[in-house]
Structure formats: C-alpha cells, structure tokens
C-alpha cells in the first residue's frame, strides 16, 4: 500500500491556480522528487501535505488516513525548509530536542536521541553551537536532524540545498540519500534542479503550471519524455521544429513518419543519440567544445538546422569538417505537445528508430 497518497489536489490563491488536480502516490520508503520550474506549484503541494496550506480540493492520505483536517502540528510529517529555519536562540542540541521535549520524553532519552541523530548527520560534538556559528551546510544538516529525530512517517524537503554552493549541494544530496535509505524514510523532495532530481529520486514527478506533466523513474523520464515540455526541461535535447502533413514530415533531407497529426511538429533528439560517421544526414562541424569526459559538437545539417552532437574523446574532429551522422533515437511531439510514435528514413537507406507513443 502507498504510504502517501495525494488525490486530485488543487489549490487556488485568490483567483490564481497554484496547483491543479495533482494525483501522486508515494510508496513506503520511496524518495519522490517534485521537479519543475520556479512557480509551478511544487512548494504548494508540499505545504498542503505538511498542513501549512489548505487544499481548495482533494485529499491527502497518509497510511490510508485523510489528514486534510489536521493542523501541521498533528500531522506525522516532517519538513526541511529551504532556509534552514533553525531557531537562532537555541543551540543545536536544543533545536533538535524541542520536538522531543514537546512529546514529553525524559531528559536522558532526549539527550541520547539528540546524540545519535547528530552522529547520523555527521555533527557529533556540535551540540552546544548556535546556528549562527555553523556553516550553511551544517545548518541544513541540523535542520534534517531536527526532522529525522522525530521519526516522521513522511519526510518533506523543499529545495533544501538551493542556497548552498554546487559542491556542497552534491555532497549533501548523497548524504540525504544515504540517510533516507538507511532509515527507510518515505520522502517527498522538491527541487527545480533536474540533476538533483535525476540523481536522488526513485521516481520523479515533473510539474508545469500547477499540473503533472509526467511521472516516472529518472531513466524513463530521460529516455522517453512524455511531453515537449519535459523533453525541453530534462537533460540536453535537440528540439527541431518542422511541419507534418499527410502523416510525415521532412527533416534535413530525411523523412519522419509515424502516427503524426498534421501541423507543427517538434523532433527531439539527445546529443548522445546521434551517431557520427553513420550514413544518414550530412553536416558541417561548426564548433568543438571539449567538456573533459566527452566533446560536444555543433553540427550544421545540410538543408537543416544546427544540432548538438556528443562525441567520444578519442575521435579526431575539427571545426570545418563535413561528417555523416544519424540519429539513433528520437521522439516527435505534435501541436498538443504530446509524444507520438515516429521513425526516420533516409532516402533508400534503411531507417532507424521508433520511440514510444
């Protein structure tokens, strides 16, 4: 059974729709990421689960029980805020102990739990520090400890690392994943950072303008974006605009066929899904960007747009060269933005690929 069920949840703020009919189920011990651009309603969903906002419509079920009527202090959820939200007048130990003391735990018990949770987040020995005496990363660790020590049924995290520098963000991400796995915490994690979502999540919910665009594992979402928006939002993607009529469309001398509606069509191809040296398109290398692990080329297709192509390090390539190249996988999006089954043909060459519909 799902630990947390969000059922047809909507929220309107005096006219503006922040969340529109969102339904998601989170399994026991699962880490689910809400991913989407700023303002798409991620925080509002999280805050409705925590109880800080009342839904305009819909239900929030935890262990099968509707919690919408409960105030935040009576919900079995724990939230980590973007700004750590530690209490500046309390030491680290007091911050963590506050919730335990409210539950009437004995002094010795409180002390033991504070000690072990600080151990867990790697801050043993910091009990007597004040929040202002900690670095940003340490403050956020304390905020996590403050939540985790209460053993919430659902852990909620709202962009907890977005105020930290990139290096620290990556480290804390891994630490959070490790803690979440170790304690088996059912977690809902909000981020606008696709890398964070892809590396952290068991499943991702991609949101846009208050609504769910796609739910899936990181692999599914990366390989088969269900909408044009997801294709443009996740990873690097070549988005090539063309026009379909009679069920097919032209693309730099090739033909894209399949289940295509007439009208504007977007073809999406990942740079790593274009094979250099394979017969198909012909293009001129305009720029070679060495990114260390691989190289990224800008290739102007003959009679078509310029696309990004990922190339391995060893291959000798220079700007100005003309090369053959062929897409190994693509997705087409019709005027409604939905993915369509599609394949591509190059003259009399045998064709490739069809992806998903």
């Amino acid at each position, binding site marked *: 059974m799902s630990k947390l069920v969000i059922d047809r949840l909507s929220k309107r703020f005096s006219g503006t729709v922040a969340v529109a009919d969102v339904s998601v189920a989170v399994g026991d011990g699962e880490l689910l990421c809400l991913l989407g651009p700023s303002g798409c309603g991620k925080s509002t969903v999280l805050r409705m689960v*925590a*109880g*800080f906002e009342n839904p305009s419509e819909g239900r929030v079920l935890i262990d099968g029980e509707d919690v919408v009527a409960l*105030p*935040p*202090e*009576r919900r079995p*959820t*724990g*939230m980590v*805020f*973007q*700004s750590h*939200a*530690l*209490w*500046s*007048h*309390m030491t680290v130990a007091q911050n963590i102990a*506050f*919730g335990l003391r*409210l*539950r009437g735990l004995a002094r010795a018990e409180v002390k033991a739990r504070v000690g072990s949770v600080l151990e867990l987040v790697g801050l043993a020995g910091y009990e007597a520090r*004040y*929040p*202002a005496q900690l670095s940003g990363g340490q403050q956020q660790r304390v*905020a996590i400890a*403050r*939540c985790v020590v*209460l053993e919430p049924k659902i852990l909620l995290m709202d962009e907890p690392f977005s105020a930290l520098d990139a290096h620290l963000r990556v480290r804390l991400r891994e630490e959070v994943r490790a803690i979440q796995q170790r304690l088996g915490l059912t977690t809902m994690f909000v981020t606008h950072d696709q890398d964070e979502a892809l590396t952290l999540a068991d499943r991702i919910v991609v949101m846009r303008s208050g609504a769910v665009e796609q739910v899936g594992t990181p692999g599914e979402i990366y390989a088969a974006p269900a909408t044009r928006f997801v294709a443009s939002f996740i990873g690097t993607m070549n988005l090539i605009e063309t026009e379909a009529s009679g069920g097919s469309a032209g693309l730099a001398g090739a033909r894209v066929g399949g289940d295509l509606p007439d009208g504007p069509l977007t073809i999406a191809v990942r740079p790593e899904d274009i094979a250099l040296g394979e017969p198909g398109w012909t293009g001129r290398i305009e720029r070679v960007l060495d990114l260390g692990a691989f190289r990224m080329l800008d290739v102007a297709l003959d009679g078509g747009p310029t696309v990004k192509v990922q190339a391995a390090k060893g291959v000798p390539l220079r700007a100005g060269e003309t090369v053959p190249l062929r897409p190994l996988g693509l997705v087409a999006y019709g005027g409604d933005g939905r993915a369509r089954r599609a394949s591509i043909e190059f003259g009399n060459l045998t064709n490739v690929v069809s992806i998903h519909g």
Partner: protein
Amino acid sequence: MALAAPILVEARRFPVGLLLVAAPMLLLVVFVLVPAASAIVSTLTDPRSGGPSLANYRTLLGDPLSRGNLFFTLGSTLAVCGLLLAVCLPVALYLRFSSGRLPAFVQSVAVFPLFVPGIIVAYALIRFLGPNGSLQTVLDAIGIHGFRSPYLTPAGTVIGLVWEGIPLTLLILLSGLAQIPNAAIEAARDVGAGRLAILTGIILPLIANSVTVAFSLAFLGAFGAFTIPYLMGPASPEMMGVFMQRTFSELRDPAQAQTQAVMSFLFCAAVGVIYVRSVIRSRRRGS
C-alpha cells in the same frame, strides 16, 4: 600613480568624515556634557565651604516628601512599563500574524498617538476621563453610576503615559517580530508545537531583545515625563519631572532641583546600561 590614487582618496575622505562627526560632537559637548558635568559637580559641592560634600543628597534622601516622590515616580514608571508591554505585546502579535485590512487599520490607530503632542493627549484624556467627561456621561446614560475619575490621581498619570507610550512600544515590538521568519514558526508547528509552546518557546525568546529595548525606552520616557503628570497627576505625590520644576521655580531651590535631576539621571542611566547591553548582545548574535 595608479597605486597612489586610492590612498589619496582614503586620505581625503578621512578628515571629511571626522568633520561631519565633529560638529554634532561639539554641540553635544558644549550644550549637554559640560552643563551636565558642572551640575553633577555642583551637587557634590558644599555651598559654603566649596569643598566636596554629600550634603545635597543627604537632604534629598532625608526629606520624606522628596523620597516619597522618588519612589512614586519609580512605581508609576514601572506600572506604565508593565501596562505598555501587557497592552502592546498582544496587539503586536496580532498584527504580525494576521493579514488583511483590519490589521492595517489597527496598526494605524495604534500608531496615531505618535503624531499627537503630549499636551493635546493630556487634554483629550481629561475631556474623556475627567469628571463629567464623555466616559462618565456614557456610563451615566447606560445606568452605571459611581464612576470615579482617574483625573488628578496616580492612575491618571499612568493612563496618560501608557497612551502616549503605545506607538513607540508597539513599533519596537513589531520590528522585533518582523525579524522572525515565517519558516521559524512553521518549523515549530511542524515538530508539534501548539500556540502556547510557540509563544513561550520560540517567539518570546526571539524578541527578548526587542522587549528589553521597548521596556528601556518606555522607562526613560515615563520617568522623565512632565506634561502628562503635570496636567493629569495628583498634586502630591508628584513625579520627579513636576517635582523638579516646582523645586526650581516655585521653591527657588536650584541646588535641590539639580540634586533631584542627578538622582533621576542615575535611575535612567541604570536602565540605559540595560538598553546598551541589549543592543550589543543583539549585534553580537547577528541574527
């Protein structure tokens, strides 16, 4: 040349800054510090021999009337401070944690006395609270008799000073509350704190400094008040401000008036120390 330029700028900026500070400093020294110091010295001087002496203070503390006035002032001032916090804290909490038109209206009403001179406050209150004032008229009209006006009683002074002190106290408390992030309150609810636990465990400790500052400024304002106690208070006992004025101009005893002033200053200085320490503490915590 390129290296020398910034140094020149620094060198030129320094005396300008000093000059800017110098003018008010000079005024402060000439018109405040020097007269104050000379007054303090003169209260410690024997009028006949010219040598050092505590005679003035012995007279002040030996005189039951003077002593009574001093304690009366202290008591009234503490009552004013207590009432101000009791009235303003709930209002400030309400204003901080609610939104809409009503709070905005309440806030403008509460801050209104700031723009009314003390003497007008006094007369307005006299018209309202005084014998046969509007309050008594209303009470009589609805059949409640036996209203005893606080006019010319210690309560009159306290009511007037509280009314006058509300805006400043409220603004200080509000600025303290404004510094508490919403997330800090939400985090407390999230770990299970109800209203009372949030108030006592989070909000009050976080605004302790603002409360101290509000208390100090209310104390300083009330202790040295003149207009309100003069117009609304009893003839005896008197608040120190009124007492000093009467000692100086009616009893024509400048030496005692000065001694009273120095005594008042000592009380206020003690509160001033609390104020300064509180400000330093909040600077140091830097949050």
